[in-house]
């Protein structure tokens, strides 16, 4: 008996030992712990808060009933819900069309300056998203809201109708010109890797250009389009500042504007419930999307023979080029120009030459300007915020890139395992929670000790952590799309040679996926530099960032100082972007899961 027992014990011991010594298992366990701590617990907390009565602290359904069928449900939930879905669907379709078309023009046709165009087309992603709303109003503002009319009315003497100045259409267009970048990057990456001989063959066989596009090109880029779709739809469902600026004057609300105002007026529960609604919608979309991709197995045809033959646009070459440059000018160049000009104005809104000053950049404190606040390069707070911003963004981007690679490893190598699927899904969830709600729930979660871990509140670690977690979906995609291209053979070869898992990971996987890691890094870096709502509640007095400082200046009416800080942020982002793409030789499209 004892013998059997001993043997059994030995067997269990062995199984256990085998289990815990398998690198894959260890990795999965570690990642699960990380995700439980950073995502599951906070989300669970958010859901459970909605079932607690604020006053009596008893369990109740009343919060849900209030939102779902209370006096103001129509205005609080249902109308905004419809608007949100409308905006999300329209932006996705338009951004996909625009992004794919631009991608095709800049990779497959004979228009000039394609590389330069490509650079400018990525720029909008580096601007804060409210920027587009601001530019839109500069162009299309009409008499309705008072103040100076926009350029269109000024120059052409046409009054833009209300529907073009505010509400649904401008929100859709402003968001489209921001998020098309996802489609542009993913589709051009796929097109770049695709062999054009397929299209040529079809042409030789007598297919018309349209037929070629529809029957050959489109099916091949479909996975990239679907992938871009997810990113675009999730971002546009949750976007706040553009709908707030362009929607409020005509009383157009989306779920995210309702979430913001609920939390801002101390109605956290309503905000959480609406956030949960948003997560549900987005999850349904993601699910449907995965069913579509999952059924078919797409394999992009690789193997370049010679250089791809470019489509000759003929008489359309020049007009197309001009159109694209007009587009680039209005979405990438003009906004920056306006912004910089703004920072040089002594008095906001006065465009005359005598009003130009460098005070807001390099001026010493002058009691007559900005209440005595010095120009940003003379302001010690700007410099310390710059230090904090860089530190948070660099740390968060590096950590997110590594964790993304590890999760990517799990999802590609352990594709059949149940937990790898769970990890993939869970890592995507923070992306769907609006920043302000995510920040609020982190405040509630991390001011107390969770499990045996220390209270993170008040540390810069928490700021880095929340940034990492919010951007995890990007780096996870970057990680898995990179690793899927690195064959298992290399790793097996390493194994045969006696390299441990750690050695293999550090010596084989990391170097080979360097470009993917860098791409994930830059994507997170860009977001982290701009981030405000996510961290404002968690920022401790020592850790001011450039973005929180912008908020301070903006609200105080020191518009020029605020814009100068934004210019600085954009400048830093562009520098780091150029460094990673030129020196690091990576392609930003990998950062969102492109080839």
């Amino acid at each position, binding site marked *: 008996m004892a013998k059997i027992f001993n043997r059994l014990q030995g067997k269990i011991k062995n199984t256990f030992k085998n289990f815990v010594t398998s690198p894959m298992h260890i990795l999965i366990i570690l990642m699960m712990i990380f995700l439980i701590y950073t995502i599951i617990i906070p989300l669970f907390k958010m859901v459970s808060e909605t079932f607690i009565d604020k006053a009596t602290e008893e369990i109740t359904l009343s919060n849900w009933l209030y939102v779902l069928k209370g006096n103001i449900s129509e205005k609080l939930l249902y109308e905004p819900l419809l608007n949100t879905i409308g905006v999300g669907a329209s932006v996705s379709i338009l951004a996909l069309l625009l992004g794919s078309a631009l991608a095709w023009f800049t990779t497959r046709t004979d228009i000039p300056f394609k590389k330069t165009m490509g650079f400018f087309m990525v720029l909008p992603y580096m601007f804060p998203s409210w920027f587009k709303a601001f530019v839109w109003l500069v162009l299309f503002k009409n008499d309705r*809201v008072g103040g100076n009319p926009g350029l269109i009315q000024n120059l052409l003497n046409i009054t833009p109708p209300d529907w073009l100045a505010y509400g649904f259409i401008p929100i859709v267009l402003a968001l489209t010109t921001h998020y098309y970048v996802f489609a542009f990057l993913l589709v051009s990456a796929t097109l770049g890797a695709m062999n054009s001989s397929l299209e040529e063959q079809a042409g030789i066989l007598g297919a018309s250009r349209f037929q070629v596009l529809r029957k050959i090109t489109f099916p091949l880029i479909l996975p990239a389009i679907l992938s871009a779709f997810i990113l675009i739809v999730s971002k546009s469902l949750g976007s706040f500042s553009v709908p707030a600026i362009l929607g409020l004057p005509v*009383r157009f609300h989306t779920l995210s504007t309702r979430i913001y105002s609920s939390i*801002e007026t101390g109605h956290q529960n309503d905000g959480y419930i609406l956030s949960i609604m948003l997560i549900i919608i987005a999850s349904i979309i993601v699910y449907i999307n995965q069913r579509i991709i999952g059924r078919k197995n797409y394999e992009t045809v690789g193997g370049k023979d010679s250089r791809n033959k470019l489509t000759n646009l003929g008489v359309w070459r020049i007009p197309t080029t001009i159109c694209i440059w007009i587009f680039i000018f209005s979405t990438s160049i003009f906004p920056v120009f306006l912004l910089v000009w703004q920072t040089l104005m002594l008095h906001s809104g006065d465009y005359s030459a005598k009003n130009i000053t460098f005070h807001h950049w390099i001026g010493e404190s002058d009691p007559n300007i900005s209440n005595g606040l010095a120009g940003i390069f003379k302001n010690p707070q700007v410099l310390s915020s710059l230090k904090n911003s860089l530190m948070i963004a660099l740390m968060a981007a590096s950590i997110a890139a590594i964790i993304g690679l590890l999760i990517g490893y799990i999802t590609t190598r352990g594709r059949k395992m149940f937990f790898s699927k769970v990890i993939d899904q869970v890592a995507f969830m923070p992306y769907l929670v609006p920043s302000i709600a995510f920040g609020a729930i982190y405040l509630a979660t991390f001011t107390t*000790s969770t499990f045996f871990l220390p209270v993170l509140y008040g540390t810069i670690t928490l700021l880095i952590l929340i940034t990492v977690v919010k951007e995890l979906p990007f780096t996870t995609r970057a990680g898995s799309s990179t690793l899927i291209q690195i064959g298992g053979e290399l790793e097996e070869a390493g194994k045969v040679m006696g390299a441990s898992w750690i050695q293999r990971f550090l010596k084989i996987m990391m170097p080979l996926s360097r470009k993917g890691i860098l791409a994930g890094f830059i994507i997170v870096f860009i977001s982290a530099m701009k981030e405000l709502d996510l961290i404002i*509640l968690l920022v401790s007095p020592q850790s001011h960032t450039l973005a929180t400082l912008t908020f301070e200046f903006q609200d105080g009416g020191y518009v020029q100082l605020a814009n100068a800080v934004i210019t600085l942020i954009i400048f830093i982002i562009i520098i780091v972007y150029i460094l990673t793409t030129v020196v690091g030789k990576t392609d930003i499209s990998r950062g969102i899961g492109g080839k």
Partner: protein
Amino acid sequence: MKRLLFGFIAFAFVLMMTACGSNDNNSSKASSSTNNKDDSWLESAKLDESESIDELYEKAKEEGELTVYTIVSILPRIKEVFEEEFPGIEVKGGKLSSSQIVDKLTNEYNAGIYEADVMFGKGSSGEWDEDLLQKGIIHEYRPDDVVDGLIDSYKNITGLPVTVEFDGAFYNTDAFDEHPIDNWWDLTTPEWKGNITFQSPMASAGRMEFFIGFIHNADDMAEAYEEKFGEEIELDGTENAGYEFIKRLMENDAIIRESAEDVIQAVAESTDKDNPLIGLGPSNKLYDRENQGFPIALVDELKPKVAPSAHQRLFIVDNAPNTNAAKLFIKWLAGGGNGFEPLNTPGTFPASKNVKQDFDIISHIEDIDLWEPDAEFYYNIIDDFREFYITYE
């Protein structure tokens, strides 16, 4: 290979252990401070004593810093002036919205994490009094000499008022020589249809209190209505004349904006008398006359009253880690001396008798007929108001 793997596991364990270790420190710190919710801090803080600035400065030097949670945007400048006057004490902290301050302080208090020393701001006055002050999350610090220096009518305000401000009606001085309205009900007439703009009260606690002020003073509003239209007001599905006013204002095609700064900018640009604009916003934006050269002014005479008043108030936070520095800061800022300098701009009025303002525009807050705020009323009506506003928006 095995060795490396075990190394990896060991590494993970070490990580956990360090986490546990630091956790022990932290939780003991947290729990000890939680237990401290007896009054030992309150006793040692001696909030009822009135030490001199010099005494406080000597003690504050040992603390070396203090942290301020505030809604004002001018903290960077306050910091500069304070640090120049009191070398060796660093001012930390930053701007938050008033509801964020409530959220942050409540969570910190419940967790026993004490980061902040001073709270300074306006808005959410109901929540501050009921949810923070009454629960002991913040405390009043009212040195006698500072209170003596206050203008009499502000002596009873909780906390320590530093400034008096109000949300009022802004107009463009290029379009109008004098104020274009003299009764709030003017804004509900067809003449102003589509020509009123304000920041959403859902985006700012300050705007919310402004609108609640009309409801609080509904009787005055009913009187003013009769004065203007010569007949008693007929309520159209609302509770009182205050609600009715807000409803008609919104139905008069008011334009709602996301930020107060946008409202002021729009007024500044509306120089055309044929297409005028009235913007409702905080009086401290009058500073934009100077700073941005905006041609704007505030209507300073209105029936029934110009506006509800609001106060930037100072509180000391419970278990403030830098008690003396906090007291020094509060005394300095509210005392009406140098501390007021960063705040001394048009539209921000001193609560202290010791400050004399001299601007080319409204200089004496006493000349302006304002409603008194009522934190308790505000606190109890916020949910109703939100429902009402969202319904008619």
